């Protein structure tokens, strides 16, 4: 092979490799993109059924119920306007508490219950997941348009 041929082969191989990698990455990307929805959006039917997404908001006070004899938990997540029932099985994170912000990862089932396979509550008292903060602000503005949007929820 001449030098030119060799170089062409090498470049061709590299291009093919990079193209394959890019294809792969983008397909994986499409399939694994996780959207975030607030309880109001879910209630309005904006969230896709049978497809995982993330749901965030505050845990409604006195909504946390343990099923005795198992690790099943039920609670409600709200953004101030609407609330969505959530079920989860397992150990909850340290900072999971009523009135605190959480983000749950899971799927909506046919009866409108969100089945979480992962629940996150961040490790800081002052911390509010930014998605939750934004969702609360939006619902706040919808409820009383006169209030400023910059206020802490």
């Amino acid at each position, binding site marked *: 092979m001449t030098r030119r041929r060799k170089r062409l082969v090498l470049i061709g191989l590299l291009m093919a490799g*990079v193209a394959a990698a890019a294809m792969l*990455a983008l397909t994986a990307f499409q*399939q694994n993109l996780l959207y975030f929805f607030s309880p109001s959006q879910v209630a309005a039917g904006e969230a896709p059924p049978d497809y995982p997404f993330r749901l965030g908001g505050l845990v409604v006070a006195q909504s946390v119920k343990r099923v005795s004899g198992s690790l099943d938990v039920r609670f409600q997540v709200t953004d101030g306007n609407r609330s969505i029932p959530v079920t989860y099985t397992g150990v909850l994170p340290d900072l999971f508490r009523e009135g605190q912000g959480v983000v749950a990862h899971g799927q909506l089932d046919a009866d409108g219950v969100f089945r979480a396979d992962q629940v996150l509550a961040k490790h800081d008292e002052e911390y509010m997941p930014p998605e939750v903060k934004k969702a609360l602000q939006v619902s706040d503005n919808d409820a009383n348009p006169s209030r400023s949007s910059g206020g802490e929820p």
Partner: protein
Amino acid sequence: MIPELGQFALVLALSLALAQAIFPIYGALRGRVELMAVAVPAARGQFVFVVCSFVALAYAFLINDFSVAYVAANSNTALPWYYRFAAIWGAHEGSLLLWVLILGVWTTAVTVFSRELPVTFRSRVLGVMGVVSSGFLLFLLMTSDPFTRLDPAPLQGRDLNPLLQDPGLVMHPPMLYMGYVGFCVAFSFAVAALLGGRLDSAWARWSRPWTTGAWVFLTIGIAMGSYWAYYELGWGGWWFWDPVENASFMPWLAGTALIHSLAVTEKRSAFKRWTVLLAILTFSLSLLGTFLVRSGVLTSVHAFATDPLRGVFVLGLLVAVVGGSLALYAWRAAKVRSIGRFELLSRETMLLLNNAVLTVAAATVLLGTLYPLAMDALGLGQVSVGEPYFNSVFLPLGLPLLVLVAIGPLLKWKSERWPELMHKLRGPLLIAGITLLVLSWWFWQVSLGAVLGITLAVWVATGSFEVVRQRVSGRRNPLAALRRLPRSIVGMALAHLGLAVFVAGVTAVNTFESSRDLQMRPGEAYTVGDFTFRFDGTQSIQGPNYQATEARIEVLREGKSVTVLHPQKRVYQVQRSPMTEAAIDGGVFRDMFVALGEPLGNEAWSFRIRLKPLVRWIWFGAVMMAIGGVICITDPRYRRLLGREAATRQGAVAKRFSEVRT
């Protein structure tokens, strides 16, 4: 008084950093030796003042000076002294000061260990480092002053985030920063070479030990972070593809590519332009990491700042450094020519493929990390890219890379013939083939991934041994030959072996781990595999600044006690936040992991119990890679060649001086 002195020292450090940035570069441009001579004293002076400032902040923490806002926000009298010290870098301002301090350490190291470099080149290197340092000192003084006073001073501090109260905090950030900031040296060497227009194999040889050094620190830093997350974040994972982890992983991938491409540039004078670009990209990714973590655009345990001005400032710094150096690259790189030619089947090609894979890997991580931020900024909805994406991308990228790792070092530079390659590879091929057959027989129904992963680990390991064996066998005295092996070969083999160990660990954990959430009452037990975990009840524990509920779990195997685990649930008094302290029984072949959940009434508690085979191999592997890197750096050839070149060059300089004088 002391805090004000600390702040004043920072201002002095900034003025010296500016001097270090301006005079040497201008002097090198005009060929004026007296201006270039400013570089070393300015760099060392700057370091001294940054140390003063750091000591002042440390003093404020150690004597609990809560009139300093930063101390009040991150410390507490009940905190043990070592955590009060580590709390310096427990939040934004102090960790930025640590960044600048470590840049000072590297800069001073350059002034000490590069006396033999040509004066103009060294001045340019130090000048570029001065530019970076000025930027960060300005950032520190303008947006994140750690010495701001609080009036009136509170009686008690707000305490350190309980998650950070761990030996991991003492070591993890400094190590990581040593790595991040260390790539600044490689970057400065590259930019200096572009400025001077001289880019040869000597340049590559000078920057190799520095780059490897930074890479060693980054490897250790990431491994420590992973281990810390494993036992402290409570739930026993070792890598979460958290954006902040990605921020440290991207420069690691690019830095690994850089180490390999520097080898080609040094040995064969090829890939020059690519190597320079990679040096710039690696440091840019380090800066991007700093920006992502410190600007508050990401939310995680690591993100401290939410002040938008800070984000804008770091972004500006990022644009200036990256944009400036890339513009310089575009302008000057055309002058650089690679002379080394090579055949399709050669070590160069293998290293080229290595670089292609590692760069694509870094790019996919970048995509996964930045895409959600871009979507959010453009108001297109809030998305996140999780573990499945990274796993599905890294698997197909990693497999060919692992195949290549064993082949590359066995190939000759420039050109190799297929029959010879096959002859060299017969050992690894045979052993990996047998492994594949045996594993397929046992495990193919369990997991194809496990079969592939373990086979590739064996392949890489035998390949590493083969590199050493072929240089030793057939000699009259193999032991002496082993001792005479170049350190860089030994280091490389060890690092590749570390990769094999790492891959084995990851495969075992991903395939054979068992994890279960369950509830137990005192006296109840849970059996997994050979092990039985018996819950014996809880008791209260009083710590220095927390209260804890501690469970006693006895682990039995065939009726005999193996170990007793004490997982805790802590509540820290000041911040009132609960913390899970998992109990781990570590071993070479398996870890037993128990985390205490919450009380379920009736004395029952929820637990998470995990049996993780070979999990420690993940960190063993990383440590082996780092040790391999250290061995490479100590290769005497870097110093010897440097000395010889310096001797001839100093002769030339002396001659030129005498010509100027006459």
